[in-house]
């Protein structure tokens, strides 16, 4: 009961000094963000949070705590997207303590009230930190998904001949995706030849080679023949020195050679006009 009363008194105090505290708080926050947001915008954001903090302290209704968390999460997400650091984001909340402290510093009788308030602000600060890192992780996973989708196109070279130009680093997840897309495309296009072009792949190690071999044997199970093209001189040296065997899989230096081979196997011939 005692704690509730203390928090209640702090709520009354904060409500009475609303304009002063918000003004000082906004100044502190604006100084911290070095001109990346305007004073008015900061003040608008903080007034909203301030009102919710007062409601939570006053224990007025049960929705206040949830609303406050949601507002802080939103603030942290925006900050994370706008490229603020986590400390800058948390600092925005912690400056509230400083702004209030400057006011209560002279009155010794408000110490328990200030402590209760301080504990609440600490929790809120941690909350922003958590929301900030969650938002960052979300951004990272969105970007990697976007990259995955961008980087694995399957193109049709000829009737019954498709190609997958691979660019970048091949890891298990990507190779799996490439394999699935290639096989799906083989079935939908009814293609019997596939060319895997690795011109854009910087390094080929045993793991990557293993993945390529798996893709080729899966395609064979569907009844399609695969050719690997675009092996660069350095990559060829690596492959040989690692002792990787491509077995009976056809490998070609360029995509053009691979296409010529696929056309020949399909019984087609390119003749000059």
């Amino acid at each position, binding site marked *: 009961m005692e704690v509730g009363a203390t928090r209640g008194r702090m709520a009354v105090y904060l409500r009475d000094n609303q304009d002063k505290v918000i003004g000082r708080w906004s100044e502190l926050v604006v100084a911290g963000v070095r001109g990346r947001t305007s004073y008015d915008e900061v003040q608008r954001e903080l007034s909203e949070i301030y009102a919710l903090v007062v409601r939570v302290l006053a224990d007025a209704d049960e929705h206040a705590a949830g609303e406050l968390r949601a507002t802080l999460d939103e603030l942290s997400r925006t900050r994370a997207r706008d490229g603020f650091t986590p400390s800058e984001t948390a600092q925005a909340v912690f400056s509230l303590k400083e702004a209030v402290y400057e006011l209560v510093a002279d009155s010794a009788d408000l110490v328990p009230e200030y402590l209760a308030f301080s504990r609440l602000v600490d929790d809120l600060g941690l909350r922003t930190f958590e929301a900030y890192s969650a938002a960052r992780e979300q951004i990272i996973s969105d970007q990697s998904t976007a990259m995955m989708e961008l980087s694995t196109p399957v193109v049709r070279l000829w009737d019954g001949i498709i190609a997958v130009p691979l660019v970048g680093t091949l890891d298990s997840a990507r190779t799996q995706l490439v394999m*699935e897309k290639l096989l799906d495309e083989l*079935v939908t296009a009814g293609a019997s030849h596939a060319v895997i072009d690795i011109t854009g792949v910087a390094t080929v190690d045993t793991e990557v080679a293993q993945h390529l071999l798996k893709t080729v044997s899966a395609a064979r*199970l*569907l*009844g399609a023949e695969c050719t690997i093209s675009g092996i660069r001189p350095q990559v060829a040296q690596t492959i040989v020195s690692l002792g990787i065997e491509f077995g009976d899989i056809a490998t070609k230096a360029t995509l053009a050679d691979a296409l010529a081979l696929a056309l020949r196997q399909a019984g087609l011939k390119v003749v000059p006009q």
Partner: protein
Amino acid sequence: MERVPILKIGPTLFVSIQIDLQDESVLALQEDLAERLVATGAHGVIIDITAVEIVDSFIGRMLTVIGSISRLFDAETVIVGMRPAVAITLTELGLSLSGVRTALNAEKGLEILNGKS
């Protein structure tokens, strides 16, 4: 136990697997196929697995065994219509179905058999 029907079309036996394969039905199919190969003297077997969504190592091995049995009767086996997911599973299991040929669909499978004869 469900049995898989074996159809004779010209010199080719056509097996379309439309059921969830149980171990007994697979063994029964092997026996039936061997009998039909002797009775008809067919030179090719097409096994259509378009409807098969799940395979395990036993079924994977069964396909290879059917290929070996058919070869004893001088018949070539072509597996047609494998789904990408099934192909990935078989590869992960390390089964490359040596001794049988594969084709995207029944039409291409027939072309392979006719090209041979």
